[in-house]
């Protein structure tokens, strides 16, 4: 079973790698964006789907990774292959710090604290003008010449996201992943099997934050710029809804959610700017009518 899944995944990646042959820049842009959000959403699902911890501030780490990479690259002129890992280390440290405060109490506190810290990161980004450019954002974040074209950047993103998704798949299916699910089911019992439950959750939080940071770094390179909006709660809400819509009880659900929302937002924003309202309706519909998301719907169909 995992073997066939692996083959399927390899097949999809192989097909995607052929995309530049189509010659459509638009398609390449769209696919790059989808890939970035697939990674972002899957990183969040480690928390929601596996640990049962609903983060309302995941965009904070997306922004930290993005700003970190952009600032190192642009302000300090550090080469990309150093800047990106450095930005990830920075995101990991900050996720561990913030995470250690967020997992101290119940899941309700977790949700409140993630929103609060998310907004704090946004406020810092917004007000620290000398470093982040404030609400003007950081412009001219230039990629090195070898990933300068839409096609080469797409291939680069495909490579990074594929590797990252593999890593996240392993995390989800590791002893840690299984332990997270056990903690979600019954924290007291897990604790009395000898599990230091909070520390396990903290490790998961740090992993999730770091991979969100990777997605953020790619996003900054992709747009050649980054703005405080990337840390704003609406960004957190969007990725959260990708996870719920796709299906939080499945590893691959958030990928479907990311694809659906990105494509939908493209079309919607051409007609109206009431995107948040539409997001809310999508979220409500999911909660009441298909709580296991699109992946849940597909699975139910498959069983019949």
């Amino acid at each position, binding site marked *: 079973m995992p073997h066939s899944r692996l083959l399927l995944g390899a097949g999809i990646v192989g097909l995607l790698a052929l995309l530049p042959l189509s010659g459509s820049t638009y398609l390449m842009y769209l696919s790059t964006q989808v890939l970035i959000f697939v990674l972002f959403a899957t990183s969040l699902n480690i928390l929601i789907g596996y640990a049962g911890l609903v983060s*309302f501030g995941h965009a904070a780490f997306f922004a930290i990774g993005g700003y970190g990479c952009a600032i190192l690259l642009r302000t300090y002129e550090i080469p990309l292959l150093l800047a990106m890992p450095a930005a990830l280390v920075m995101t990991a440290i900050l996720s561990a710090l913030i995470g250690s405060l967020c997992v101290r*109490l119940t899941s*309700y506190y977790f949700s409140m604290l993630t929103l*609060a810290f998310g907004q*704090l990161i946004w406020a810092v980004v917004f007000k620290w003008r000398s470093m982040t450019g404030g609400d003007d954002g950081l412009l001219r974040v230039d990629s090195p010449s070898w990933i300068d074209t839409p096609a080469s950047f797409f291939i680069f993103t495909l490579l990074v996201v594929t590797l990252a998704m593999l890593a996240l798949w392993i995390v989800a299916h590791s002893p840690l992943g299984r332990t997270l699910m056990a903690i979600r089911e019954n924290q007291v019992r897990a604790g009395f099997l000898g599990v230091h439950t909070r520390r396990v959750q903290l490790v998961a939080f740090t992993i999730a934050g770091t991979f969100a940071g990777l997605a953020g770094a790619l996003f900054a390179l992709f747009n050649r710029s980054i703005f405080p909006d990337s840390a704003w*709660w609406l960004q957190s809400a969007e990725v959260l809804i990708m996870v719920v819509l796709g299906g*939080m009880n499945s590893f691959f659900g958030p990928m479907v959610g990311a694809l659906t929302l990105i494509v939908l937002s493209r079309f919607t924003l051409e007609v109206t700017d*009431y995107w948040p309202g539409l997001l809310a309706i999508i*979220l409500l519909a999911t*909660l009441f009518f298909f709580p296991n998301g699109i992946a849940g719907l597909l699975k139910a169909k498959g069983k019949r």
Partner: protein
Amino acid sequence: MMYATIQFLNGLSYGLSLFLVAAGLSIIFGVLRVLNFAHGTFYMLGGYIAYEAVSHIGLSDGGFWIAVALSGLVLAVLAAIIERLMLRKLYGRDEVYQLLFTFALVLLFSDVIRGLWGTQVLSISFPPELSGAQDLGLAYYPRYRLFLCLVGIVVAIGVWFVFQRTRWGRIIRAATQDREILGALGINVPLVYLVVFSAGAALAGIGGALAAPALALKPGMDTEIIVECFIVVIIGGLGSLWGAFIGAILIGQLRSIGLYFVPEWEIVLVYLLMIAVLAFRPWGLLGKREGE
């Protein structure tokens, strides 16, 4: 001395209006075990509804007060409808769904407000009865802000009275401590939930309407206030009314001190206080330790 007095009063009036919102949030959580992300949204709606009402009936001849009452009423009805038609269906489900549901309300209403009132900053003038400044001996201070302090205190005492001295208050306190006890006592639990959710929303709406003359109405105020309410209940202890009171007063004072010493960054002070509480008393100043 004069400056200090004014700063203190600013902090107090801000803290007390924060309490109006945080108290509702805390009570709703205590009884329904639902963390209402939309509580800041109710506050914001209250402000905009008061603005709309005032723009039709005017401020004078009690117009402002009618507007405030109307805000509370509309929010109570709206919240009752939301609870009855939607939230109720989620009680038995995983808490994730309840969190996501109230979060969906935040998204939805932020766009509804944007659609109805636009994105420009709106404001209400002080009601004529309370415009101008009051001589306090040490300093002159805006009458309206003094009034806000008074309302905060009256509400705090009022809620305390309801909790301690009435049948409803006893039911709510019992529910906060042990939810299973309610059904066993033969109490109409769905009704209790409905009333508590609706009353909490009304309190938030009135808070928003009363704050409108002192603050500006603008997009984003919903998340701003809910984040501060979360900090209040984290500092005070989730589910504790007095915890919310102390947390709100502390934050009000801290902000006004911060505004003086580190303008622009005063919010960081608030976060530092929260982090300190989390580090040393993670269950909040007046909260109960988990598992006991």
